[in-house]
């Protein structure tokens, strides 16, 4: 890392503020619309993703990525007979 935490925060505060607002406005838009016909598993993933952002653990980007990933099965080659 070339920058201090203070520099990262100062330099990126406005951009992240804007992104936070985008997500907030998305949820408002969703709730203002008809909620009955949605794929709840998708909404659930987005809500879980938001919880990762505010928890106290690191590697948030990798954990959000894994949240949105299909699971790997080690025996895939046997299943495919390859």
């Amino acid at each position, binding site marked *: 890392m070339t920058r201090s935490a203070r520099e990262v925060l100062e330099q990126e505060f406005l951009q992240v503020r804007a992104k936070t607002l985008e997500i907030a406005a998305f949820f408002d838009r969703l709730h203002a619309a008809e909620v009955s016909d949605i794929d709840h598993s998708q909404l659930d993933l987005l809500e879980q993703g938001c919880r990762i952002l505010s928890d106290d653990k690191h*590697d948030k980007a990798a954990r959000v990525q894994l949240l949105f990933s299909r699971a790997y099965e080690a025996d895939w080659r046997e299943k495919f007979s390859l």
Partner: protein
Amino acid sequence: MYYVDPHIHMVSRTTDDYETLAKMGCVAMSEPAFWAGYDRGSVDGFRDYFRQLTETEPKRAAQFGIQHFTWLCINAKEAEDVQLSREVIAMIPEFLDCPNVLGIGEIGLNKNTKNEATVFLEHLELAVRTNQQILIHTPHLEDKFQGTRMILDMLVGDSRIDPSRVLVDHVEEHTIDLVLERGFWAGMTLYPISKCTPQRAADMIEKYGPERLMANSAGDWGPSKPTAIPDLILELRRRGHSEAAIGEVVYDNPVKFFSQSRRFDFIRPEQRNVRDQIELS
């Protein structure tokens, strides 16, 4: 700053894009064979495409002093058709001696199916038999983690494959360490929508260091930005990285990796005469 784009699909770009890239410092690029936006109907469709990659694009690039290299295969999206894939794999050797061919790629998985894996393994056979370097496409979005693990299983499971001659592209935060810790090269694809932003790529460079790491723009048929590497260079400069450290990722690493291919006849920009290149084309 001079740079090399190790993964850019110039068949989908205009000649103006070549000019812009040259003005931004791009001195060489490698173009893996990929999906054309539609499924091709026959092996002859691929033969024509390989002529475009080995004859037409190097000439277009040379007009602006850029060296163009390429990789050949049938991409994962069209590999679902195993019969057609086998015909294409059998035809590829016709082009392996063309002067700008660096190896087999971009092979990989798309939806992680049995047919895709079958065709991937048959491409590996071809690469081993003909001693070619390999460039790998990993799937996108929810398929990336599973597909990357499957690809690594197949690569590591074949003791004839030397990881230092394989580049695994489109790595992101959840796959980069899997690739690097097994000794492969890793490429981060900078993309406006899916894949990775210049900021996140800079984060990964800071976390993992520059060794065996590269960045590319893809520049394909989707919404993509052929000048994404200059964006990354600017982001790294803003963060205070030295020119030498930036150059390692965007220039030294691709040159080092490609130099393992006997067809990589790279002329360093300091030794180039662009006028000669233009006249040759």
